[in-house]
């Protein structure tokens, strides 16, 4: 299945196919969780903070479906 992924906070900096404005399309087997997606992308889990699927906040155990739009944000600090 195909899903769309957009990475924020420079999470996608080392992924050549990731466009900072448009994100990227990822091919995943059915039944994969967000945790599996993070692993497939090669991003250390601790670098991912908030995750949303189709605009709704989700946990990393959420099972993905075809056509989902996943957004992942890096933990923040500041003010």
């Amino acid at each position: 299945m195909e899903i769309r992924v957009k990475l924020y906070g420079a999470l996608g900096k080392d992924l050549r196919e990731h466009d900072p404005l448009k994100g990227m399309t990822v091919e995943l087997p059915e039944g994969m969780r967000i945790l599996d997606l993070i692993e497939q992308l090669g991003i250390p889990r601790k670098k991912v903070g908030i995750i949303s699927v189709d605009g709704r906040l989700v946990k990393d155990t959420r099972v993905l479906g075809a056509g989902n739009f996943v957004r992942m944000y890096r933990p923040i600090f500041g003010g």
Partner: protein
Amino acid sequence: MKFVKIDMTSQGITTGDVPTEYEGLGGRGLTSIMINKEVPATCDPLGPENKLIIAPGYLSGTMLVNTSRLSIGAKSPLTGGIKESNVGGTAAADLAHLGITAIIVEGQPADREALYLIKIDAEGQVELVDAGAYRGLRTYELVRRLKEAYGEKNSITCIGPAGESLLTAASIQTTDADGRPCRAAGRGGLGAVMASKGLKAVVVDRGGKATDPLADADLFKACAKKYAQAVRDDDFTSVLAQLGSAVLVGSINAVGAFPTRNAREGQFDGVEKITGETMAEVIKERGGACTHMGCAQCIIRCSNEYVDKEGAYVTSSLEYETIWSMGGMLGNDDLDAIAKLDFLCDDIGLDTISTGVAVAVAMDAGYKPFGDAQAAIEMVEAVAEGTEMGKLIGNGPAAVGEHFNHDRVPVMKRQSMAAYDPRAIQGMAVTYATTPMGGDHTAGWVVADNLEDFGGKLDRFSAEGQVENSRNSQLHMAAVDTVGICDFAQSGFAAGLDTVCKMVSAKLGKPFGEDDWAALGIRILKAEREFNRKAGFTKEDDRLPKMFYEEPLPPHNKVVVVTEEDLDGTWEF
């Protein structure tokens, strides 16, 4: 370690040693404790009894990285209470290199038309110079002319037309590492206080060689090295270098805490056009700078230089709070317009937060439609033109709300909140309501503590634990603002609070431990609260507007659940 006192009534200048009672203080601790002691709390903030105190952090000018923070304190004409607003740039380091602990500006010229500037040369000689020729100038032109007169190698701290008009959203601007007046001590209307003293600018030579000696230089050096390494090692440091504070736009919007269209919604439908990621791509494509050193001794470089389609400079640095106040808050997704508004605020000498929210309140009241960026630009320009609408905008959101008889005004103690809606992050409800500074995010930024996905332990929709957490954060920040460490360099605390305390001790020449750090925070908050109490503030001032209790914020549809009783318990210690 010296105080420079300037009596604007007599134009007399005195320089003397720092009195023992203020020993070991700098930044906010110094400004707040001194104002509480020396300024009559009920005085007219724009009258001769108020004092404008300009103080580098206690560790500014030392070898420690990211310590060029300049605190400016006074009684605020916006809140009517005590105020400290701190700013980066180079002035703090430059003053500290001259051994100046504070510049204390008191009194008022009898001739209300008089306008001066303070010039401090490389030997620390202070002179008060007639600045009548610079009256009415916007800050960029003012700085250009002052550099012509005094040379490039000066830091310049100044006000623009908004300050000269005594407007309560007027900022004090200061020059960055490239000599542009784009850094703002924005909050509290301190630009109006500076103008009320007949002061247009403070010009400080950047070549001072009289930094306070360190009692134990070896210990200081070892700790400073450790601290800097912790900043470098922190994952977020590299993110800030790539995206700046604008990295927050995407995440705060994702969690539904990005106040949109005067806080009617918690998510902005146009957000993708104004995220830090989008901004960085726009800047890169046009040949601007995403990574830029704005402040002296900065190793983070969170600043940027935003340029137009032709590659010409527009502003520096486009930050999260401004992208919110001039973007989401106005329903405006035009990044170029946001950058232009940021520049205008710096140039006219206005707080971008209060100004943007003032425009948002006007739009909410029906004066102009949300999303009309051109109308926003015209409203900000009107401040410099001195029109009636301009005066309203320049006096901030509370003044605009009163004019339109509109009660959706997100202010605390008359000062606008910042870019985190308290209905979606309950911890910020406590900070906004209870800080003596009025609506202010930096006083106790508890956002990450409220977000589980960012490692937070608190439920952001529950009141449980919020008071204690905000209190602790506020006490800690009071101490941080005293030593003058940049908020974004707090990652260095991973080296241990004891590392910071050892540096204070190594400068002071006396023991200073973690208990002293905690006591310092309490001492400052007590002084600030005492001043506000004397000025007439009661617990009824530690409140949020009713919109936050009555209007559920989409998409989570929550209201503030922290009770007034909870808030009243914040400072019972």
